[in-house]
């Protein structure tokens, strides 16, 4: 979706400020949000791409004003209701109207395994690549209303396949319909001038990870 989350190249956001000796969490609730998110995802009612898409659907003015963990909380609440783990009424009142029917929940003993073995999105499927390293490509000029990992700044731009990373889940469909649509993922090199015009260094470049469905031969 052409949302405010797609920030690459925007102006007016202010300086980058690095906080010295930044704590892992700035408030206790931030850690709780992260943990609630991981423990809730344990039920496999949604995938990581659906989580990203939920974040992107935060109303734009709120998104720009929200902290990372406020966005995560918004997405978690949305997914819990949309995927039927809690009802909208339960979320509103804070009172459970019954136990959820789930097979198991994440216990203390399961945390290490969960964090060590987070599901990979690289797949073993035997899918032929559409492009080879060194080949010239153009990122498709598409504007899906749903989730996409093709940033706006790269659309319609010409690049070169830097490398083929192998077969991965395609997030654009995985977020919308759980269709993994296995296909090759590439590192695509775009010259900075191709993206931003003559005002930037001719030496510089931006590497974007894109899938077969994002690309066409140039």
């Amino acid at each position, binding site marked *: 979706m052409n949302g405010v*989350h797609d*920030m*690459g*190249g*925007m102006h*007016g*956001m*202010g300086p*980058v*400020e*690095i906080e010295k000796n*930044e704590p892992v969490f*700035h*408030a206790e*609730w931030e*850690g*709780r*949000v*992260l*943990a*609630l998110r991981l*423990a*809730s995802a344990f039920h496999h009612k949604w995938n990581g791409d659906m989580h*990203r898409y939920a974040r992107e659907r935060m109303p734009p003015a709120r998104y*720009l004003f929200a*902290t*990372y*963990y*406020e966005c995560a*909380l918004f997405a978690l*609440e949305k997914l819990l209701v949309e995927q039927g*783990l*809690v009802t909208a009424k*339960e979320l509103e009142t*804070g009172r459970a109207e*019954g*136990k959820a029917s*789930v097979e198991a*929940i994440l*216990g*203390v003993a*399961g945390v*290490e395994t969960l*964090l*060590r*073995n*987070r599901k*990979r999105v*690289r797949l073993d499927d035997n899918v032929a690549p559409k492009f080879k390293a060194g080949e010239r490509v153009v990122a498709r000029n598409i504007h899906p209303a749903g989730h996409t990992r093709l*940033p706006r*700044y790269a659309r319609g731009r010409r690049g070169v396949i830097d490398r083929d*990373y192998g077969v*991965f889940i395609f*997030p654009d469909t995985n977020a919308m319909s759980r269709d993994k649509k296995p296909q090759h993922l590439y590192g695509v090199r775009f010259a900075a001038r191709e993206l931003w015009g003559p005002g*930037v*260094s001719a030496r*510089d*470049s931006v*590497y974007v*990870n894109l899938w077969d469905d994002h690309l066409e031969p140039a």
Partner: protein
Amino acid sequence: MSDHHHHDEHVREHDRPLSGVALRVKALESLLVEKGLVDPKALDEIIDTFETKVGPRNGARVVARAWVDPAYKQRLLADARAAIAEFGFFGYGEDMVALENTSKVRNLVVCTLCSCYPWSVLGLPPVWYKSAPYRARAVIDPRGVLKELGEEVPDDIEVRVWDSTAELRYLVLPERPAETQGWSEEQLAEIVTRDAMIGVVQVTVPTGSRR
């Protein structure tokens, strides 16, 4: 909330929560516990893991080993996931790519669409990495960002920006400072910073840090 923020009126109020959010989170946790969906002790364990077991010290060990052990460096550049797994860190199953800085090439990592970050080696991302200014500017004005953070990159050096648009995360392998000849792997790991492994600064030898 502590008062460690010094932000002005820009839109990136990325670390100033709305009042009441802590209460909302508490209410959500109670609800999920009551519904039998989460175990609060598991939540504590997750938080403890992120606060004590993961973080940029892990990445620093990877970088230091690559600096002292050429065979390890080759493995890291060829298959970063496998090379990092040799340390036995909490893995997250991330596919990783190591990006080597040289005297001619500087690498810079960003996630313009969200906040993708190599948790297994750097832990959770800092606020600035997740903030609108960095996500917006790193791809269009990397030299401006680097300059603002303290370094003007000479024209003859190539800047490569890596937008983390996939489940494939990057670790920048910074250049080893020339004055660290003879240092041990442990000593080297101490000077490798998180920000150097994201690529926004170089590794320097702090004054007073001698072997």
